[in-house]
């Protein structure tokens, strides 16, 4: 279940991302006092900030966002029918790390690791205890995909001027596709109602394992400095896998879903 706390944390994270990376203005450089057209007396010191001496080929970064599972398999139909769960309760905050390599001016290969977990609290939708108390349980839904993505940038990632100066593009939309593996865990614990006898029993159900996953992405890199890039991305992933025996006779669990995220990337 997405709580207000999740939203606040995400907003704060986004805020700090922008706070620590001042926006890039046209013509801004580390030697701001040095007008590019001013005479040579003002000697630049250190390294430039809005361009780079050399062409960075790799980047590493982190992202945060939300996972919106499609949750269309019968497992989710059952739990949302029996319990006071909605599919939206399975939305989970996501955190992840990315490592990428750029090549051919328009492409990047990105390896990502993510962690998404939600633990909504629920009650039996149709039954209560004989004293009127709700029959409660907690569901944990965890997903950890490890994926590789090939991104295509329609615009050049950066522009080499001369032999040494490299100017990154400030806004870089991209699309891409990739694949990988996803580890998931779907577990429930608490009190449940036997649908045949209406007995209330305490139990834990668990299913976990790996599944192959494929995805498509669309996003954009927004240059803050030559080194620091803000990233926003939408990723739609496809995955299904069989459930463990705690969940008998179900079709494979639907791990398909949309992930929206934002993050920061550091080029090197």
């Amino acid at each position, binding site marked *: 279940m997405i709580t207000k706390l999740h939203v606040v944390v995400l907003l704060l994270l986004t805020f700090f991302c922008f706070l620590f990376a001042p926006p890039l203005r046209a013509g801004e*450089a580390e030697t701001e006092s040095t007008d590019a057209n001013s*005479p040579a*007396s003002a000697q630049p010191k250190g390294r430039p900030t809005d361009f780079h001496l050399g062409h960075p080929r790799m980047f590493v970064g982190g992202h945060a966002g939300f996972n919106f599972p499609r949750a269309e398999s019968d497992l989710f139909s059952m739990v949302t029918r029996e319990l006071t769960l909605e599919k939206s309760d399975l939305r989970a905050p996501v955190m992840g790390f990315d490592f990428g390599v750029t090549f051919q001016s328009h492409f990047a290969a990105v390896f990502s690791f993510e962690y998404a977990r939600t633990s909504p609290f629920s009650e039996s939708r149709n039954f209560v205890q004989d004293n009127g108390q709700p029959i409660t349980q907690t569901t944990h839904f965890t997903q950890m995909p*490890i994926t590789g993505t090939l991104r295509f940038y329609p615009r050049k990632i950066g522009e080499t001027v001369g032999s040494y100066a490299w100017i990154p593009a400030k806004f870089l939309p991209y699309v891409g596709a990739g694949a990988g593996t996803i580890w998931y865990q779907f577990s429930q614990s608490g009190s449940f109602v036997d649908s045949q006898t209406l*007995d209330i029993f*305490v139990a834990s159900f668990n299913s976990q*394992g790996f599944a192959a996953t494929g995805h498509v992405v669309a996003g954009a890199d927004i240059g803050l400095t030559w080194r620091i890039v803000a990233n926003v991305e939408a990723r739609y992933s496809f995955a299904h896998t069989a459930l463990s025996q705690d969940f008998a006779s179900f079709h494979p669990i639907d791990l398909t879903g949309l992930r929206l995220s934002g993050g920061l990337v550091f080029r*090197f």
Partner: protein
Amino acid sequence: MNNPKQLSIACAGFSPRLLLGAILASTSLVFLFAGFTMAQTKSGDSPLLPWIGVWSITDSGSATVDPTQKSTVEIRPTSDQKGLEISRHSPRQPDVSETLIPDGTRRPLVAQNCTGWQTARWIPEAGLILESSETTCKETGLLATSTLKMIFETDQMAEILSVKAAGQSHVAVRHLTFERDLTPAPDLSPAWVATSARIAISAPWSLDTIIQLSKSIDTPLLEAAMIERNVRPGLNSQSLRQMQAAKTPKEIIDLTVALAYPDQFHIEKNGQVVLRPWLVSSTSASASSSYAPGLTTYYPGAFYNCYSPQGYLGYSGFGSLAPGYCWSYYSPFWWDYPIYFPVTGNNGGGGGSGSGVPGGGGNGSGNGVPVVTPGGYARIQPINPPHARPRGGNGFPSPGNPGAGWSGASGGSPSYSAGGDSGGSSAGGGGASSGGGGGAPSASPGGYSSGGSGGGGQAVPVK
């Protein structure tokens, strides 16, 4: 005081008459100051003024020269104030003079079997005088020269010579130091005016100036000028794009970047010829007889062999150079400081025009003919590798190694717990194992099942 305007002025504490007087007075002051400034500008705005004076050559090697033997270059305006009369005076050499009219006019050059042209022009925005010549000789082909005169400090001048012959470029640089003003004459400006003009002309170049110069000056020549001037413009992405949009040569962009960040690059001069002022420092035979003694006529802008009695090689380029030969360029700036080309090479070309680097025996020193290679006059090497590397090469998850830290969380055998500790008022009953058989609680599309192993109470429908 019935007039509202009068009232408002009066309220401000001024009478109309006083206000009008103040306006007239301030206007007069403005015009007075402007007139003074314009007068100052007019007296010092001759582009030739900074060059006028007596200069001495201060290249390495000449430092050991007896001051009494020192050559000086005297520059004075022509009588019509349109050009410069430049003459070199040396105690042991005949004077060498030339008249430089930097008006951009192309003038014919004729010398023995060679024909061509030469021109000079003033580049005011950069404070440069650029001379160019092209000559073609019957036997040896085309020779092109460019010289650039530049005052880069108040008392420092550089003369940069670029020679193109047989498809190759050579660059030589000469430094001169201001010695003194010319003897005051009625038609000359006061010394302080000339000093001010030299200060102005030696002002650092802006990026716009570099871009403009790159369109009109040979790249090796401009590279040499930028190095001598130690140009360090502020750079940012916008200025780099500006250079790129102006189609500034890559060599100039690279050099601008390297000069802007000197701690990041090492710059070597590539193709600079050796200057050997041996004739000046020599104390032996009189130079006038040892220097091209067989010649009686010298042609400005021509090259002469330092050794041969028939030393004139005109504009023959370098096709006929033999190892160890040197050249002297007939110019007040260069005449007694030969440009020495230590000829090595491996192409064996012995004499024809356009034969490339002439062959020779080699000097064993490993020094080849100093030629500006396609990389440009400035050879730039980044001091640090431009690409960073991941620290230690690890620390990031990879597909082949999903990563420590979470793998232990996977795989654990499914389990359940059941009992009266769940807190439900009537909860209880047995447990189940996912791997277990009958009696284990389970979930199915139809709902949950306790597995018949006991219940903790009875559920009732929500009312």
